[in-house]
């Protein structure tokens, strides 16, 4: 009887633990709606959503990477370089010296080129990690510097600010990604976040590929012996992270209607924080896209809420840090409880 009660308590605790990020989000919303004026207004919330869209998309790619047991520190730099590629293509076009011509592409074409290059950059991470056996932290730390360097070289450190394009060259309309959807108050970035989140969520839980990602993080050796092409899956996962980063680079550049090489600096940290807050395990094998989105919103609400309350940037950093550490401690508690419940079930089965 006591055991039954106990396992009932465990189950309740488990439900609370699993929904903890969401509970925290609600508490934060209530808290800021009291302390900050106008926080619960549609306008303010949409601003939060606009900010969240950026590192939310980064965090989705990051979640995939972390689930395989890796890390991608280069996402911010890829975003920055992607912004510079897109911005440069609009403002300066592509000059082919040998033919003495400069090519200008339409905006959809530019977006396609940029995201493909982003995916390629991610793929390179994957290849270095799998084929040359470099630790993900090191490989992506290296490419973080390399892509940032290229972003600066592209314009010699300057900003591309004439991104409106011209009718004559047929490359207008780039700013649409940073604006609201026609006739609504919904930022375009939020829609893109939603589309990528739904697609990534479906792939992770409803396709063999997604389950391969989850199993590699859980036990790479066993996955390999089960016939999963571990290297190939990992390379695609890093490519996906690169793709997400390039998308973010485009949205961020479009929001500012200018491309600077500094775009995306230290954003990888927000992406990792959102993933971890959302319940992704740094040990690999565990994580959901939904959780990551909630995690991204928690960070967004904390950031914007504190700003609206007049908390200084310095204190914001301290609070963000504390939230992340506490989240991971709770994660460990959940894991221990889970192990205990599994053991209990095992004993009951006997």
């Amino acid at each position, binding site marked *: 009887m006591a055991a039954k009660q106990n396992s009932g308590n465990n189950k309740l605790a488990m439900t609370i633990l699993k929904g903890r990020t969401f509970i925290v989000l609600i508490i934060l919303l209530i808290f800021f709606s009291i302390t900050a004026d106008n926080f619960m207004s549609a306008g303010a919330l949409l601003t939060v959503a606009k900010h969240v869209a950026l590192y939310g998309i980064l965090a989705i790619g990051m979640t995939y990477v972390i689930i395989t047991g890796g890390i991608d520190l280069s996402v911010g730099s890829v975003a920055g370089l992607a912004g510079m590629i897109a911005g440069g293509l609009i403002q300066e076009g592509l000059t082919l010296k040998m033919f003495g011509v400069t090519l200008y592409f339409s905006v959809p074409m530019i977006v396609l080129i940029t995201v493909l290059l982003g995916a390629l950059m991610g793929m390179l991470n994957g290849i270095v990690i799998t084929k040359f056996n470099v630790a993900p932290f090191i490989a992506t730390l290296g490419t973080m510097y390399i892509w940032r360097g290229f972003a600066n070289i592209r314009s010699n450190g300057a900003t591309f600010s004439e991104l409106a394009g011209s009718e004559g060259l047929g490359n207008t309309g780039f700013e649409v990604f940073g604006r609201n959807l026609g006739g609504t108050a919904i930022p375009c970035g939020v829609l893109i976040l939603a589309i990528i989140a739904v697609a990534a969520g*479906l792939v992770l839980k*409803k*396709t*063999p590929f*997604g*389950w*391969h990602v*989850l*199993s590699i*993080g*859980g*036990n790479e*050796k*066993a*996955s*390999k*012996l*089960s*016939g*999963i*092409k571990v290297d190939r899956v990992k390379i695609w996962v890093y490519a996906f992270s690169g793709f997400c980063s390039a998308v973010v680079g485009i949205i961020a550049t479009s929001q500012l209607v200018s491309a600077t090489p500094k775009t995306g600096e230290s954003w990888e940290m927000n992406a990792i924080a959102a993933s971890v807050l959302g319940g992704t*395990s740094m040990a*690999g*094998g*565990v994580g959901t896209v939904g959780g990551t989105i909630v995690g991204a919103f928690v960070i967004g609400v904390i950031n914007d809420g504190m700003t609206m309350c007049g908390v200084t940037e310095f204190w914001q950093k301290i609070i963000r840090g504390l939230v992340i550490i506490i989240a991971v401690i709770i994660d460990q508690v959940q894991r221990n409880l*889970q*192990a205990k*419940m*599994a*053991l209990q*079930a*095992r004993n009951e*089965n*006997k």
Partner: protein
Amino acid sequence: MGEGYKCREDVFLHAEKISKIYPGTKALDEVSFDLLRGKVNVLIGENGAGKSTLMKMIAGIEQPNEGKMYIGEEEVYFKNTTEARKHGIGIIHQELSLFPNLNVYQNIYMNKEKTKGRFALDNKQHMEGAKAVLERLEHPLDLNQKVGELRVGQQQMIEIARNLVEDDLKVLIMDEPTSSLSQQEVKVLFKIMRELTAAGISIVYISHRLEEIMEIGDHVTILRDGKYVADSDVKDIDVSWIVHQMTGGAKSYPTRDREVDWSKVENVLEVKDLCLPKAGGGYLVDHLSFELKKGEVLGIYGLMGAGRSEVFECLMGLHPEHTGKVVMEGRELNIKSIKQQIDNGFALIPEDRQAQGLVQTLDIEKNCSLSALTRYKKGPFLDAKLEGEKVDGQIKDIHIKVADKKLPILSLSGGNQQKVVIGKGILTTPKILLMDEPSRGIDIGAKTEVFEIINKYAEEGLSIIVISSELQEIVAISDRIIVLSNGLKTGEFYGDEIEQDTLVLASYKGHH
């Protein structure tokens, strides 16, 4: 017994009814053991008999669940190796536990560092001490050389030197020290062992090499299935007595009584001159040839390190660098990857369930369907209904006791976890099933069920190769057995020829 126990005069340490339980198995079952003073005490038994486990208790690496240990009149309990070392007990592990990135004297003085003042390392004293102890072992080495650059034999000497560098050594436990030594190095080792025993140090010696035991041993203790079987002075016994005691002579599993004329059954698999080179020369698998008939259960027996698992690894595509011919149903295979081999109709049940078989973060269903996942597709998506049906069918087929297939895999008992791993292999609809120690770490009941699974699928026409270190088990389930030793095939036995004693003798043949 219990209170006021006093060791016999010639006994340094007495272990009384030691039991050790690991999840799913009883590794040691009330084993009592006298460690004779100044003698070479030999422990012998099959893999998994409990030899190493018993020594881990005495060296303080692990603690018994039940039982007591006495030194003289004092009851002792070692909660870690440091405690055991205080009583003069040192151990040399089966796997060398040196630091390859550190040099010779740093390794010898690891965790016994001498200091000048409180913090500064006194390397001068380290080097003098290391030099002295290596000279005593007649094995002078460059003290500044990294240990990783030394030969295995030299590394073994450092392991011994580590234990000798402090004067108080009373017991030295050596777990298969000769398995990687050359003839010359073994001679030197034996000479050192003689000197140590002459100096009053007791040695516990675990080895699989029966001839060596006759040469160096003073007293033999035999374990089987975690239980004490017999002990005797070496001068009173011979090799065949040891073999008989190790195997027990009795058979507890019923043998297969299938009346099949195998000469009329077609070959599913033919392997010719399979070779896997070893790093540093020689072969892990040495020109191995064998064939496998449809519906046959072929056993591979051998000692640890005989190259058995490596044969499976070659067949599964883990070592694309292997040489030799593998012909399946008349078609020569060019083995490149695991996925390709699974598609070719091979399935592997790996040796280490936790490290190689299961994905602990996934539920029971996914662990079962993992290998076949790409076959259950509806468009780009996973066909969850088909997957569920297949897994349910498998759970029913091999009687996995599951309350809910969405529960975590670790909520199952060891035996049922193993059945999930077997189910995962079978869901890929293989023609050849490779099972590496399929009954390791599961209780007797589950073992019997695993054998029933093997019989059932063999009768349905699946060809199965089983690796096992447990003699009774392999004798019971195999239609034919090949014996490997040092990568070489040293014996092949059909039906009535299969006997435990002959298998054991063959498994030692490859050793010089």
